């Protein structure tokens, strides 16, 4: 089955495809960064527009809460903006943004999990966004099942599985994001798939609890 490919020309808002970067995409990113450095906020906003959906989705799988994922995505873009003058234009924007976001997500998981979505929304003085909408109830149920199993993996394994299986990043990209060698990522991915398979089949056989039973 064809993995989801994000092509801005066809699906505005989805962002560029990090898995097969074209010279044109990379060149356009570099041009946008240069414009943003000169104070062109529209250029920065285009960068946000290109990457925010993909970044937020990945973060959602890492932190398990769409509001937190949006917060962290926002913070990542803010840090990116503040570090624009130090950004090496020869580097690609995507991996850099993902690296910032993954570090922030890791940090959040270490210290902020105690706050509920509603509590955080109230602290911000806003109503929490309604739950993420799926087109079909069956799709949503299956997605929730998979997400529940995914959340049981230890963080380093969940991270590589999310980046590879859900975001479609190649091992080299994941290595760049996590600061690990490609060989390390390869074996970590193998272990992550093994763990997920065992948990998934245990779930199918009724050996582990349903998400609704956990609450």
């Amino acid at each position, binding site marked *: *089955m064809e*993995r*989801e490919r994000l092509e801005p020309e066809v699906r505005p*808002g989805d962002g560029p495809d990090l898995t097969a970067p074209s010279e044109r995409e990379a060149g356009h990113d570099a041009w946008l960064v240069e414009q943003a450095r000169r104070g062109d*906020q529209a250029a920065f*906003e285009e960068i*946000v*527009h290109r990457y*925010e959906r993909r970044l*937020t*989705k990945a973060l*959602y799988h890492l932190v398990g809460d769409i509001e*937190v994922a*949006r*917060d*962290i995505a*926002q*913070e990542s*873009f*803010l840090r990116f903006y*503040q*570090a624009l003058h*130090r950004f090496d234009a020869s580097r690609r924007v995507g991996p850099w943004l993902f690296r*910032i976001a*993954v*570090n*922030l997500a890791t*940090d959040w998981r270490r*210290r*902020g999990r105690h*706050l509920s979505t509603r509590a955080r929304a109230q602290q*911000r003085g806003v109503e929490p*966004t309604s739950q*993420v*909408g799926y087109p079909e109830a069956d*799709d949503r149920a*299956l*997605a929730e099942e*998979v*997400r529940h199993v*995914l959340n049981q993996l230890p*963080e*380093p394994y969940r*991270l590589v599985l999310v980046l*590879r*299986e*859900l975001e*479609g990043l190649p091992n080299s990209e994941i290595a760049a994001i*996590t*600061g*690990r060698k490609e060989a390390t990522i*390869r074996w970590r*991915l*193998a*272990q*992550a*798939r093994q763990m*997920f*398979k065992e948990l998934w*089949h245990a779930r199918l056989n009724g050996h582990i609890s349903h998400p609704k039973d956990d609450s």
Partner: protein
Amino acid sequence: MFSFFRTQWTCRRVRRRLPLLVGGDLTGREQLQVEAHVASCERCRQELCQFEQSAAALQALAESDAALAIPSVLPELRRRLATPRPSSIRREHSFSAAALALLGSLSVTAIVVGTMLVQWAPPGRGNGPSAGAETGGKVAATPTQAVQSSTRQAVAAQLDMAVLASNGSPTSDETAVSDQTQCRYTLDLATPMDAYEPALDEY
């Protein structure tokens, strides 16, 4: 045929590579060896089948994600860029009155100890007990009076700190300390990214 097919890999060796095979991460000789083994081993084939089922589940999640309705972060981001403020994902800890009181106690203790050391300096240097300890504009006749006097000062200072803590209006010096402490829980936007990145090294 090729020489590497003469010795088939063991099930154990193959199974370690099945998760890589199912994800398309095997190439060349490794891939051929694993595929050759799976073709002739029923148990490893079943194992591969399970990997394919779990991969399909993940694929289903990836496809569901395509329909996720995620509101843009741009409006909030624009607002934050216009008016810089502390991170919204910081840990919601404020500098508590108890911490301020503790800091005050430590400062007072340091003052008391310092005063006692000055009071009990060896005679002949002009400000020891024999020369008369001068505290608060008055001269203490004995070392005991000097200590009592400095203790009173310490208690008064401690009371001041407690009042400050309860009023929540620290002086400029205390504000600086408070801000420093808050930074421990706040995402420091001024920190270079390189300083932040090593967090992943703990993996």
